[in-house]
């Protein structure tokens, strides 16, 4: 049994203008200790998927369906107090913006100790000791004195380290990281990713890494989901995504990766804007931006289907296999050419 089994997850928000289908039928599973990367543009539903699993969407005006089985228990149908006992204990989350994710009026130590005491029968002293231990593990210098400091006395990178410490303090089986490096400067990003990977090794947690950076995925993920407009476009083990991408959107993402020595004047971009989830395009949601769009793409939403010969590789595109393999090979060829150049 997988640690987390998400089956046909849908999250719809009721707004004044209509229903926003933020997540529209997403399925995946995560095994213990594994890393799943969810890639996609802003607004593609990656964050909402994870917030739904954590039960952190506002209850008002939100409709959720499908299943999210965590160790066999459906998180979506769980009673509030049961979910609370799992949250922060068996399953924890790191958020995008470390600058606003910590409470400004409580000290770092108090916020870490709170996480310990909420789930364990620990004295204040024991909780504080555990907090200090974690702060040291995530590499906060002079942790003994900094534990008394407040969030505003920490830099962005240091705050994200604190968030990581807070998420891991109860040794969770599943860690969800929602673009943990987006708000940090570049030099910090690699350090934080490395730290997450290191902590994952030490604690043996499974990780769901939400990102819009394929490079991050290539480095740490075992499996990858490419999301587009609330749906899964492509889903595969990481080497298959990078060695045999099957969806035009995945191609677009790969094509827009900056390359150091390719002689292109500008970065390649995917034309157009991500679609409105209030009124998604008819047919395949990617068709208005797709260079390979055919008449059928404007009529029918392609189902998620297995790639021939690869049983754990799924894609949702109407293109014929020959064209896909051809474009895929060409794209990889351009990377290979760059590598030898």
């Amino acid at each position, binding site marked *: 049994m997988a640690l987390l089994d998400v089956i046909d997850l849908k999250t719809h928000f009721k707004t004044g203008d209509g229903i926003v289908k933020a997540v529209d039928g997403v399925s995946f599973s995560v095994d213990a200790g594994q890393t799943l990367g969810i890639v996609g543009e802003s607004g593609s539903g990656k964050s909402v998927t994870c917030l739904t699993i954590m039960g*952190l969407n506002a209850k008002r005006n939100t409709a959720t369906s499908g299943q999210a089985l965590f160790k066999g228990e459906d998180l979506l149908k769980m009673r509030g107090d049961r979910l609370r006992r*799992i949250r922060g204990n068996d399953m924890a989350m790191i958020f995008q913006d470390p600058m606003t994710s910590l*409470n400004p009026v409580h000290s770092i130590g108090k916020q870490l100790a709170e996480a310990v005491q909420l789930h364990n029968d620990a004295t204040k002293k024991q909780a504080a000791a555990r907090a200090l231990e974690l702060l040291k593990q995530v590499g906060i210098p002079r942790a003994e004195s900094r534990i008394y400091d407040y969030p505003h006395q920490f830099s962005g990178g240091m705050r994200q380290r604190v968030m990581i410490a807070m998420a891991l303090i109860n040794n969770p089986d599943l860690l969800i990281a929602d673009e943990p490096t987006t708000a940090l400067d570049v030099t910090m990003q690699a350090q934080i990713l490395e730290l997450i990977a290191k902590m994952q090794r030490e604690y043996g947690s499974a990780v769901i890494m939400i990102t819009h950076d394929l490079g991050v995925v290539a480095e740490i993920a075992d499996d990858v989901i490419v999301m587009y407009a609330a749906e899964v476009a492509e889903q595969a083990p990481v080497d298959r995504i990078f060695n045999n991408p099957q969806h035009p959107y995945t191609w677009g993402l790969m094509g827009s990766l900056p390359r150091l020595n390719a002689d292109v004047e500008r970065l390649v971009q995917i034309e157009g804007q991500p679609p409105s989830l209030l009124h998604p395009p008819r047919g395949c949601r990617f068709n208005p931006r797709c260079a390979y769009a055919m008449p059928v793409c404007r009529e029918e939403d392609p189902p998620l289907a297995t790639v021939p010969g690869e049983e754990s590789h799924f894609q949702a595109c109407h293109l014929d296999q020959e064209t896909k393999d051809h474009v895929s090979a060409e794209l990889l060829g351009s990377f290979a050419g760059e590598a030898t150049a």
Partner: protein
Amino acid sequence: MIQYLIRRVFWAIALMFTVTAIGFALFYLVPKDPARVACGKSCTPVMLKRISHDLGTDRPLYVQYAKFVGKLIPFSFTGGPHFKYPNLGHSYFSQQSVNQIITQAAPITMSLVFGAVILWMLVALPIGILSALRPRSLLDRTTMFGVLVGVSMHPVWLGLLLLYFLSDRVQLFPIGGYAGLFSSGGVEGQSTGLVQWAYHLALPWFTLAVLFMAIYVRMIRANVMEVMSEDYVRTARAKGAPESRVLRQHILRNALLPVVTMLGMDIGLALGGAVFTESIYGLQGLGWWTVQSITAGDTPTVLGVIVFATTMIIVFNLIVDVLYAWIDPRIRLS
């Protein structure tokens, strides 16, 4: 911290000079000779001159002001440096010491203001928080309607209405007046004590509190709603904190910070005299004295109230600053 306090004290002194100087200048502009008023109907020029001299109003304005400030400064060098009690002078008309007027009036205003503060906070806190937690619920809609009514009701109108219905028609409450909290206070022969005090102040408390109640409900509701959508509140939930703890530890601590500031300033301001409420209920507090002495042209009394009110505002702003630094680490540690 010490540097900060010194700076505050200097500001307070500067503020005091400015406020009293403006007060003095304003009353000089009023074409009303206090000596003539004090002299009465059968006034002779000789009497007028003597009264003017006694009151000091025959001297130039800057001399009068200098004398006023001189009496106010709490230390003296004549006969060796020593501290003295600030003296606000005497009323032009009753010859009563202004210090004494303030000492009698201040407890009345304080009783009114602090009672009203407790009343409005007791109502505004739970209602503001509850309607923020359940936006657009029946409670929230009722509350927002009540807020609109509350901010629209002038204390004079409300006071008269309450007096008419609750004191005159249904004789539940006394028609105005004040009963001292301690037997030493109040007028001779008048009943005093906690029950009488609260009984006399119930309607004034309510009258003064209604407007603030409405303003504070709205403010608390808005603050709580704003903080509820903060990322760190989501973090607290992600940690597995139960809702009650999220509310107490993570939402309210942050949402009530600005309320503390407002409350401090409002208390300071109200202690200068709740003019309308005191006038309607015949409470002889600072607001009542202000109205009386402005009408009569009794400059020393008006200035006395101004000095007291300014002091209160300065003191309460200082209390707010200290409190704020104590509860908000961002200020304390910067």
